């Protein structure tokens, strides 16, 4: 038997002589990325990077923390301090990072399964504590990386590899969950709404406290294919048809149900002291000096 060895990968093709405006934020030597064509993660990534660019944030002050899964690979492509942690534990990792170095802008970027199934407990507690981080959740309604299994946001009747007869579990409404757990900034967009998403990320990055943005995204390889949603472009057309932009809606009323209109926009934007502000206040009360 001949020994099979991995072939060396070709050098990434970057357009000669042309620099993409976001290239400075990317580990271009890691391209091409592993995401499927039609996946929304690239739009989410560029929206985030444009937000950084437009806010003029010093890239050395930004740290990105991801969990595991397709969205978990986000941390690997940004030329920032970036941490690809264990499944579900991006938020507690980010909590430690932020508390140890408060001057950092800590951004958690992960998926619906990572943040809300295996990592759900950490999500609600970080929101409750109002830890000053921004959590960007790409919601593609299933576990893409492992081949398309049911997740905590899979809609009822959704077909996945582990719900071959259709899903019968109730899914989470992520913005409702975030708001009720205490998040001080909550928004939802789809990857169709790239500019609004970018503006929303800019708001979140400037907003002290626990910020949460759900980014609804196509998964043409898995969820889209199994549920006959067509190509990624068809899913974008679906978003154009069904997404209704409204701000200030009660997140309890903002469920995402297949075939029905759904709300995107900003649900919560409020001021509340962050964990570190309260901690420092307590220390000052007790010891009369600033931390």
């Amino acid at each position: 038997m001949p020994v099979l060895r991995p072939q060396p990968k070709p050098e990434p093709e970057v357009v000669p002589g042309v620099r993409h405006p976001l290239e400075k934020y990317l580990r271009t030597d890691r391209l091409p990325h592993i995401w499927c064509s039609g996946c929304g993660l690239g739009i989410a990534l560029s929206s985030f990077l444009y937000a950084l660019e437009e806010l003029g944030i010093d890239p050395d002050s930004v740290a990105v923390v991801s969990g595991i899964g397709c969205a978990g690979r986000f941390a690997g492509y940004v030329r920032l301090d970036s941490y690809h942690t264990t499944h579900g534990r991006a938020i507690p990792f980010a909590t430690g990072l932020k508390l140890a170095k408060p001057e950092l802008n800590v951004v958690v970027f992960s998926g619906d399964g990572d943040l809300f199934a295996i990592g759900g407990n950490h999500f609600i507690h970080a929101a409750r504590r109002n830890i000053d981080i921004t959590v960007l959740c790409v919601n593609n309604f299933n576990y893409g990386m492992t081949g398309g299994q049911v997740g905590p946001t899979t809609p009822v009747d959704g077909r996945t590899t582990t719900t071959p007869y259709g899903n019968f579990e109730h899914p989470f409404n992520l913005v409702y969950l975030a708001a009720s757990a205490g998040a001080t900034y909550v928004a939802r967009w789809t990857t169709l709404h790239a500019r609004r998403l970018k503006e929303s990320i800019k708001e979140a990055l400037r907003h002290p406290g626990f910020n949460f943005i759900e980014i609804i995204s196509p998964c043409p390889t898995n969820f889209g294919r199994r549920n006959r949603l067509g190509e990624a472009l068809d899913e974008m057309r679906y978003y154009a048809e069904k997404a209704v932009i409204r701000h200030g809606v009660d997140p309890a009323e903002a469920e995402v149900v297949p075939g029905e209109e759904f709300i995107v926009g900003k649900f919560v934007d409020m001021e509340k002291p962050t964990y570190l502000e309260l901690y420092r206040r307590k220390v000052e009360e007790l010891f009369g000096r600033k931390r």
Partner: protein
Amino acid sequence: MADNPTTRNAARVTGRRILSGVHFMNGDEAIAEGAIAAGCTFFAAYPITPQSEIAERMARRLPQVEGVFIQMEDELGAMAAVIGAAWGGVKAMTATSGPGFSLMMENIGLAVMTETPCVVVDVQRGAPSTGLPTLVGQGDMMQARWGSHGHYEIIALSPASPQESFDLTVKAFALSERFRSPVLIMTDEVVGHMYERVEIPEEVPIAPRRRPTVPPDGFLPYRPDEDLVPPMACAGDGYRIHVTGLTHDERGYPAMDAEAHDRLVRRLCEKITRFRDEFTWYEEVMTDDAEVLVVSYGISARVSLGGVELARAKGIKAGLLRLITIWPFPDELIRRAAERAGGIVVVEINLGQIYREVKRATGGRVPLRGVFHAGGRIHTPEEVLAGIEEVLRCRS
């Protein structure tokens, strides 16, 4: 503001990192004070008996020394937060007991793989499962060695007194920085709750973190120095590195092939095993002429000393080898001891975990007996004596 460090109340009000002086405190509190003296400014944990005194002491003390205490929602989160804090540039610790130790295992592996310095304390209690929450055990010793998935090396230290709990915690932080590795303190319920004299020195050095000496351009975050340990660039240092639990190359980038994996895993192991002599710590009592050697650790070693004294009173030349460094296991030390002694007795509060290591290290060259108990109480000196006499009988 009262500022008398020799009283227990001082812990309430002082802003001192080092509570120099003589104290009466338990092993758990001594671990907390050892950590703070060593420069620990971040502690994340979840309440569990018999660890709570560590967390409570840290909750009181850390805000005084510009540190952060956070009680996380579970031990999974506690361990993850500790790793995150370490990458934020600080010295970080967590503490737990068996059930929580189990929950920390996956992220201990992340700390091993990403080479994150941190300290993890396990105050062992009766186990498996919920077991005996308030009673002593030493049944997590193999979990400390192999609990996370995959092949790796870990450093584990076992204190036998509150004073040693303080001292070893300071050393654990130094080792974690030296090797860029999690370091485990495997204490137990009795040492944790035992009150004794603890003398805290005037000065406790803060172990430095090895930082990059080259500018960010061209810095390879996982290219090791000659001693196999790479310098560590933390978040915000300007190096913009990628850190992943995936198998990675010297750039820190995922490398999904067998060769890269073998190279990385071997280096992670060898960076510790090659330098094990630097920290193979132990104590010998009456071993010069000993015909029977009792090998033990933690609280069991203290009881074993009583058994050795009983044997000496009966004219049996017994001695005690108390292991302080448990992992990596001191094979060479045990091998040399076995050459001198006519028999070895291993005393521990489990059914033979370190016994297996002693058996392996001695290769069956000397008669070996174990004095075991599954947990819930410490041994009596008489039980240790019986073990000594038994091994003597099978020798003759």
